[in-house]
């Protein structure tokens, strides 16, 4: 560690009394990271449910549908609670703005949570099976959008470590969503029926792990906030939990005991939550230190000047 420090000296930069240049993202804990988790859970659960629908696995489909509906509605509640004027939440749907990921996301969330509620309601009550099936299949489309739009939501800001990490965050959130949905379905469905959920959890854990590795290495100075402080601790905890959970999920199908499944689900859920909290804190840290705003922008200016001089 100390050798690394010596080789990469702290970047020099100037600032106004060390004050941040951009504003701190207002999003609070636990609302925002829990919303990110629930959105992912809802979206990937819908995908799992749609897969079950197409392959005739009702006993795995039912818990996935319920998870999609409950997580979707709970996520919406967290989002409304985040507003400065919660009573005006419907203003989100007064326009559709492609330039605003939050506007696009509000429409995706409305569609996803509405359709998921219909699908789950039909599955639980047995009413309107054709409508429930159609809604369930539709969430197979809105679900992945729900799970990944949130990466665009955080990236489309001036927050340096979010903006620069938009590629990695999309896959981190996608993997995290698959892992958390696999985790819930794995324990909610009968053990013998849970094969696809287990495999989804394993794939998700792998994608989440690789994406967070890349995020913590490939952004140069802007990777620092993902490695340092409380964000770094959360990201490391997420890594350990996700790898452990993924490994447990892989072996849980080989045994008739439920214990490995339950432990895997707990680890994957905790890992997914830690990753979301870690991403929020890393973004905040990158907004709070003017270094992360000034140094990359200075490098950009210098590169432009070199180009101009050279070409």
């Amino acid at each position: 560690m100390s050798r690394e420090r010596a080789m990469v000296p702290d970047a020099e930069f100037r600032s106004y009394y060390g004050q941040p240049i951009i504003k701190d993202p207002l999003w609070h804990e636990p609302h925002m990271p829990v919303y990110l988790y629930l959105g992912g859970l809802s979206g990937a659960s819908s995908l799992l449910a749609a897969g079950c629908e197409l392959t005739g696995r009702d006993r795995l489909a039912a818990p996935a549908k319920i998870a999609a509906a409950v997580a979707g509605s709970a996520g919406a509640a967290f989002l409304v609670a985040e507003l400065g004027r919660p009573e005006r939440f419907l203003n989100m749907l007064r326009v559709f703005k492609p330039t605003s990921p939050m506007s696009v996301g509000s429409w995706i969330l409305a569609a996803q949570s509405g359709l998921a509620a219909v699908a789950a309601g039909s599955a639980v009550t047995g009413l309107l099976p054709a409508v429930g099936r159609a809604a369930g299949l539709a969430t197979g489309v809105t679900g992945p959008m729900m799970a990944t739009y949130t990466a665009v939501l955080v990236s489309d800001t001036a927050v340096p470590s979010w903006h620069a990490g938009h590629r990695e965050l999309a896959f981190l959130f996608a993997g995290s969503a698959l892992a958390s949905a696999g985790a819930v379905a794995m324990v909610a469905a009968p053990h013998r029926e849970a094969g696809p959920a287990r495999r989804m959890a394993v794939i998700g854990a792998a994608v989440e792990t690789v994406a967070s590795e890349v995020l913590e290495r490939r952004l140069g100075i802007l990777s620092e906030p993902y490695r340092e402080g409380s964000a770094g601790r959360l990201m490391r905890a997420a890594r350990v939990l996700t790898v452990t959970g993924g490994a447990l999920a892989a072996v849980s199908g080989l045994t008739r005991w439920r214990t490995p499944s339950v432990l895997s689900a707990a680890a994957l859920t905790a890992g997914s939550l830690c990753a979301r909290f870690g991403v929020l804190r890393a973004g905040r840290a990158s907004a709070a230190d003017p270094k992360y705003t000034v140094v990359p922008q200075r490098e950009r200016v210098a590169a432009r000047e070199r180009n101009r001089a050279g070409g």
Partner: protein
Amino acid sequence: MSERVGFFTDTSVCIGCKACEVACKEWNDVPDDGFVFRATSYDNTGGLGASTWRHVAFIEDFTERGDRWLMSSDVCKHCTHAACLDVCPTGALFRTEFDTIVVQADICNGCGYCVPACPYGVIDRREDDGRAWKCTLCYDRLRDGLEPACAKACPTDSIQFGPLEELRERAAERLATLHEAGVAEARLYGERPDDGVGGDGAFFLLLDEPEVYGLPPDPVVTTRDLPSMWLWAGAAAVSMAAACFGAFARGPRR
């Protein structure tokens, strides 16, 4: 559509009187922004925010070349490509007939998305009120043919208001004059229509690097990369579907 108007803030003649801060508060009925001794020269508002729409920065600069006291009145830049406006999900933020950016207080639901979107850290949410606020470039005064309160109150014409094209010409002349007079460190900031935000409606003449005044050296509107962001999110969404397909691929059951 009227002509595009804006501010040219010439910090070389700013005397740090804060008349702009006071005039802005008085005219726009902006609540107090805290009474804090910050020990940062004469600056006790710190930066722009929900209840600070003009902010005078004070930099006491003691170097071998001599002592300087830099002062600069900062304000919303009313960007050509405004991130706050782009990301606002309710349409509360809009572009006026004067090409300025204004929040409609009766629409804003306080989602706060504009706050981290602004590359200059201008707009913020008033926590007791729940909505986002920033400089309106005195939209009400403009509609009555008056200049904004801060420019009106500025005793040295450090804050100049007018049609943007005219201000750019005036700024270029002022820069040339200063350079001739040997003030080599004078530079314009935010005046170029080809910068990352398409040029600022409120631009500056500075006497040091922008970051010394708390301004980003090379701001870019975040939505410039939005197509790429959606592309990557789309790829991740498709990968999720592929992963799900893979999860079901093995065997009929189990």
